[in-house]
């Protein structure tokens, strides 16, 4: 059905947060450019950042979920959200790949926790960080930390238009070249993660003379060993290389 023919009701959307910085929520509710259109085109029946009321139970035409799952109750809630949502997109590196909260999974976790809470760990119920797709079917990934503007818009538009989304799935290098940045990896030997990182940011870092640190996460089917080799040739130690690949993707690599 053509989408302009007059919707009877606005799509109902829910925004949910697990363990994270709430940045994705802020990107949606504050930083993005088409905020006004977004808020007017959707009926956010659950969005704690913008509404103090709201029905957690749904039903939702669109559920956007940010954050890493680090506590058992979150997994339960996630499943409930899934059951009540027609479409569920994971938003941000935390929800998709583990992101920064998953760094913990790279070390000895209890030790890490003890560094923070010296006394008895009163309420602590934390578990190994995990991603949404470990528990439920995810219909799409809005990558980035914070999520990329283009993909975030794609997520929203896909609901308004009733069509499948097409999220960006190529390397940061492609965007980097579209911008005409001189390649830092080739020209200056900086350990840029661009070749294995999913695009969507617009190659921000190389454009400001900084090696990509992979905040959009690894792209699917990236040739990780090949870039590690390259970094070794540049003189990086094994530890330094490992750190680069575990900043936002500790889960994927620690299997």
């Amino acid at each position, binding site marked *: 059905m053509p989408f302009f023919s007059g919707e009877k009701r606005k799509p109902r959307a829910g925004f949910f947060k697990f363990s994270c910085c709430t940045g994705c929520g802020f990107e949606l*509710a504050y930083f993005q450019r088409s905020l006004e259109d977004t808020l007017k085109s959707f009926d956010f029946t659950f969005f704690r950042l913008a509404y103090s009321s709201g029905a957690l139970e749904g039903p939702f035409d669109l559920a956007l979920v940010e954050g890493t799952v680090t506590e058992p109750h979150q997994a339960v809630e996630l499943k409930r959200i899934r059951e009540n949502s027609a479409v569920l997109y994971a938003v941000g590196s935390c929800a998709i790949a583990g992101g920064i909260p998953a760094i913990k999974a790279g070390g000895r976790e209890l030790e890490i926790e003890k560094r923070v809470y010296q006394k008895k760990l009163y309420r602590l119920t934390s578990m190994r960080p995990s991603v949404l797709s470990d528990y439920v079917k995810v219909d799409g990934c809005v990558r980035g930390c914070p999520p990329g503007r283009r993909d975030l818009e794609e997520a929203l538009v896909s609901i308004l238009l009733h069509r499948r989304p097409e999220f960006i799935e190529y390397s940061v290098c492609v965007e980097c070249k579209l911008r005409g940045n001189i390649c830092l990896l080739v020209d200056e030997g900086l350990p840029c993660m661009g070749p294995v990182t999913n695009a969507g940011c617009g190659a921000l870092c190389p454009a400001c003379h900084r090696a990509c640190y992979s905040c959009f996460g690894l792209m699917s089917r990236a040739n990780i060993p090949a870039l590690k080799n390259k970094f070794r040739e540049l003189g990086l130690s094994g530890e330094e290389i490992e*750190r680069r690949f575990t900043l936002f993707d500790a889960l994927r690599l620690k299997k």
Partner: protein
Amino acid sequence: MKTKIGYLGRVEGEGGVEFEIQGGKLRRLKVNIWEPPRFFEGMLVGRRFDEVPDIVARICGICPVSHMVTSIRAIEKAIGLEPNENMLLARKIMSYSQIASSHLVHLVMLALPDYYGKSSFMELLPGEEALFKKFIRLKDVFNDITAAFGGGRALHPVSMVVGGFTALPDEKRIHGLRSGLFAAGEDVMDVFKTVSGFELPDLKTDSEFVALSEEGEYAINKGRISSDMGLDGEEQDYGSLFYEKEVPYSNAKKTAVKGRGSLMVGALSRVSLQSDRLSESARKLALEAGFMPGPGKNKNPFYNIRAQAIEIVHFTGECQALLDIVQSRTAFPKPVPKEGEGSALTEAPRGLLYHSYIIDRRGIVRKANIITPTAHNYLGIEENLRKLIENNMDKPAKHLQLLAEALIRAYDPCFSCSVH
């Protein structure tokens, strides 16, 4: 009567409040912050010093700049690196524009609906369409500034690193930002007028107002510790002036002034303690809005939102002045790892933020400690909430609940930060 707000909406992060009134007495009161911990201080151990700003930015989605600047300064102290003047100017622009932006979110999106009796600012439409439009325009103006200096995005900026900035916007861009800011002047005043028009509930707090203070400047990115009760110290004295303790019902820790008690940090404390260093127009507005200079004044936490509105005016002017003098060139000292220890204090939008690191000779973090504004305010929030409820015991339950929520929001708490 038992009141439980399991999940407080329109605040950053996850927390709730519970209280129980029995026989005209407040029996129990808890602000429980159940935002799940991510163990940042634990995760940072083993990472290299130059990764720290990017990691700590992710503590919070609304004040990443503050965490970055604070960690950068602490690390620069640890490795003995002096950034150049232009880098410091650019850093100020980042902080100032972010504070203005964060205040704007809080005032319009989070706090304002309380004063209209609504659950969301979206429900204010269509009546307040004009205000909404102004909000949209203003947020873009401030975010553009943070984004331009931050390498393309305001949220988790990329160009700000230990030592300085990997790139700064060119003259043309800076010029564009300046004109954007200039055009926003009127909108800023209108937001101020709207906010200062709210009738605020009565409450007198005993919390000590703590803020940084610096000769000749409205201190944000660095300064001495000062308070309205005479506290005075350097950054490195932080540990001897405050203490932190864990609470059984919450993932956040509570901080207090040693030997005294609760403290309040944030816009209200800053405006109260540094009123004479506000820009002229902001100072005038502050006086008009009822802010009195001097210790022991302005001690109503609800005033915090007015103070935020004043700060938006102040930082609009400050950003303009800085954009006039900041330069586009980027040469900055490249950091080299060195063994050392460093701590830094800055004023985040929500108040005093403390980062401290021990770094080994290879540049690896051995110990990290982060204490956030909301942790500083936590004890005071509970104390004042208790007071507020006791003062209004006669009010209907619904009203009491709304009042309680409004007070918590007035502090502009950030639970993600507080737990981290």
